[in-house]
């Protein structure tokens, strides 16, 4: 069968069972857009290529399948650089096809030429420039294999226009052996001796904490983690990227650690004698000052990426492997040491007499300490009747009035931290956010991608007014494509997180952070984009507006919540400080502001 390069590319994507492409055509990618008309793959036409990238990410977050985006050369390709960097930081599987000028014109400063393989070298897991039409099926197979295996990540396939117009004899690699990846062999199974040492450390610890990160989600390992936590009775912190890996409703769940984590999660890690890091990477937002982080803790570090082990903190036991598989191995090792599965699922196991597990320290003093911290230092805010609307109140109402398995996407800033703190994540793959890169403007397009991936679920984006203005145009895409996402703007008229830092660390000198609450008019803007626009200014109006929004399923909804500009995110560990110096709440006399 003879195919053009363009047809071969689209057929290759079909062979990879791609169901949707987020993209925007242009000159260099034009030939590839022709066979899309005849393809079974849905194409969603975005309004800006950054939107395509974040939609692909949102889709990948909630489905576990690689998100696919397609853009043209030059500015089309550079516009998707930010989503690539975002996906690289958060290990999101994504395949981006970029058009390129003809091979004969490469290097001549041709119209819309950018050497995107060079630009994206450090922010992709790998990239390819196709120079031979016969390579297309193999390279597409390699691209999907690399994006989705090992530590997942974004890849770019750069596709010159003349290659698209050449013809080739169609084939499809029948196995991985036909790929040309001699240097790529991700290790998924942990070293048995190290796994045994990990189990021994876990059975010897008096103050252990499971430090669960986004890698567990990538590994589809939430169930394994649940068994590990409940069988051992070890409490769990879930990082920003790992929210939902372990249900917030479970008594062993301590919630989010880190710079804006809750007191108990932060302090339990600080005081622990054993941290079991599973698919987490000791990010600076989690550790605070590294030299003062969890000083008495031994470290078990499980990661599929060998370069993570020892990058920040040298582990006592380092295990390279897939989180789900390694947790399974640890569970087996625990069984062998006398801590087998409990008679009922989700209960603590009873150690077999005469085994290592039988002499295990009693964890109840540690768990009592954790409970005491939780009681003494809960998350707090004060919604005064008739007073300014508190963002936390909005989030609690939104949480309580929406289905339990609602997917929440967020932007970056104060609203992101409040969303992570106040939502109750009881299911994996219900939290979509930009963790490592901290990309403002992520929420709207990511929510759209998530809704495309899971049309059966309610999808709320929790956004800030600053973030919303960066990518709001994608609501036009959502209206046109009938993707009914819901957007809650926590509009405090400021770049709130920057404002918070200027208030606390720059003597209240507010430099370039004021945005205005009503310029733009968010309701009119929403309506102009084909959405329903609502405005909420007081606490009484919150519930009726959310109820109305949850009842709309034929178009997007935007609610402009006018929230208190003075509210700050607490707890807070100032940048560069030890986690011991956590600030629980506003100083005396500051609380009413």
């Amino acid at each position: 069968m003879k195919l053009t390069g363009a047809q071969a590319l689209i057929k290759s994507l079909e062979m990879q069972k791609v169901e949707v492409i987020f993209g925007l055509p242009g000159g260099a990618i034009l030939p590839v857009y022709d066979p899309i008309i005849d393809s079974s793959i849905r194409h969603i036409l975005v309004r800006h290529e950054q939107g395509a990238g974040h939609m692909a990410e949102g889709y990948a977050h909630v489905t576990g399948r690689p998100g696919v985006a397609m853009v043209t050369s030059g500015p089309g390709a550079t516009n998707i650089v930010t989503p690539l960097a975002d996906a690289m930081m958060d290990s999101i599987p994504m395949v981006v096809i970029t058009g390129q000028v003809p091979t004969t014109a490469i290097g001549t400063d041709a119209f819309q030429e950018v050497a995107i393989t060079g630009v994206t070298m450090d922010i992709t897991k790998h990239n390819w420039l196709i120079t031979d039409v016969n390579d297309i099926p193999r390279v597409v197979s390699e691209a999907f294999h690399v994006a989705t295996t090992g530590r997942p990540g974004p890849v770019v396939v750069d596709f010159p226009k003349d290659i698209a117009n050449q013809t080739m004899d169609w084939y499809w690699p029948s196995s991985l052996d036909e790929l040309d990846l001699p240097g790529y062999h991700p290790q998924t199974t942990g070293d048995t001796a190290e796994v045994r040492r990990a189990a021994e450390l876990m059975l010897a610890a008096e103050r252990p904490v499971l430090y669960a990160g986004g890698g567990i989600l990538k590994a589809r390992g939430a169930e394994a983690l649940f068994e590990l936590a409940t069988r051992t009775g070890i409490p769990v912190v879930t990082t920003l990227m790992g929210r939902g890996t372990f249900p917030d409703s479970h008594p062993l769940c301590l919630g989010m650690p880190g710079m804006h984590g809750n007191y108990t999660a932060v302090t339990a890690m600080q005081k622990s004698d054993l941290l079991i890091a599973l698919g987490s990477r000791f990010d600076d937002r989690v550790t605070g000052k590294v030299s003062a982080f969890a000083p008495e803790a031994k470290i078990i570090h499980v990661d599929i990426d060998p370069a993570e082990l020892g990058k920040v903190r040298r582990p006592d036991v380092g295990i390279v492997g897939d989180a789900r598989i390694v947790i399974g191995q640890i569970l087996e090792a625990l069984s062998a040491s006398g801590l087998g599965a409990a008679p009922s699922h989700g209960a603590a196991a009873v150690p077999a007499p005469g085994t290592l597990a039988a002499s295990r320290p009693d964890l109840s003093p540690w768990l009592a300490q954790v409970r005491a911290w939780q009681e003494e230092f809960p998350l707090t805010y004060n919604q005064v009747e008739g007073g300014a609307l508190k963002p936390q109140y909005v989030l609690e109402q939104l949480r309580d009035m929406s289905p339990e398995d609602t997917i929440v996407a967020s932007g970056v800033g104060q609203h992101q931290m409040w969303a992570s703190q106040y939502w109750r994540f009881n299911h994996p793959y219900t939290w979509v956010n930009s963790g490592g890169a901290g990309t403002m403007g992520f929420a709207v397009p990511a929510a759209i991608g998530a809704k495309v991936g899971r049309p059966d679920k309610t999808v709320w984006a929790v956004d800030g007014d600053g973030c919303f203005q960066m990518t709001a145009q994608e609501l036009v895409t959502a209206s046109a494509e009938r993707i009914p996402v819901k957007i809650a703007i926590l509009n405090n008229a400021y770049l709130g997180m920057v404002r918070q830092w200027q208030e606390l660390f720059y003597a209240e000198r507010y430099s370039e952070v004021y945005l205005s609450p009503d310029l733009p008019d968010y309701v009119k803007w929403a309506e102009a984009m084909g959405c329903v626009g609502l405005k909420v200014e007081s606490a009484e109006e919150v519930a009726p507006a959310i109820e109305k929004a949850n009842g709309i399923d034929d178009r997007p909804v935007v609610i402009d919540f006018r929230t208190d500009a003075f509210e700050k995110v607490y707890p807070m560990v100032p940048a560069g400080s030890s986690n011991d110096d956590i600030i629980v709440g506003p100083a005396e006399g500051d609380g009413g502001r």
Partner: protein
Amino acid sequence: MTPPARTSGARHHIVSILVENKAGVLARVASLFARRGYNIYSLAVAPTDDVKLSRITIVVDVESSPLEQILRQLDKLINVVDIFELAPEDATEREMLLATVSATPEDRGQVIGLVGVFEGKIVDVGRERITVMLAGSPSKIDDFENLIRPYGIVELQRTGRVALPKLERRSSRLRSVAGGSPDPA
């Protein structure tokens, strides 16, 4: 570019990287050093006995602990097949030098004498200059370079070193980074 006449400092590391022989691979490798601000001291790249693979030999000035991280990240590159770090004492290293040296009739005999002592070769002769070639260990090349410098070096080019593990190694500092867990030292 004026490289210091020093090739065997304490912080020197020799990294031997087996890579796919494809376009852009060298840029990917070099980028991991560049993003941290480390200068590559010398670099040699050539195909191996397998035409699909090339070997990159890099000498870099860097502390051991960031280097370990760089090596792990290099190993993550899709096109990198294997990496070895070679301690200088465990490596057989060779480098080649080409130098055009001023050699007036009165000096010429001395320069030719030095070339002979170092087992180099005269590869080109002009009226006032000669071009010499010398292959050997980096320290031997350093010595030769220092000794001919007073006669007047017109142009000098070194290849950068290539290295293979010594066959009889005393320490165990040769290690593959591929897929391994960190040594718990």
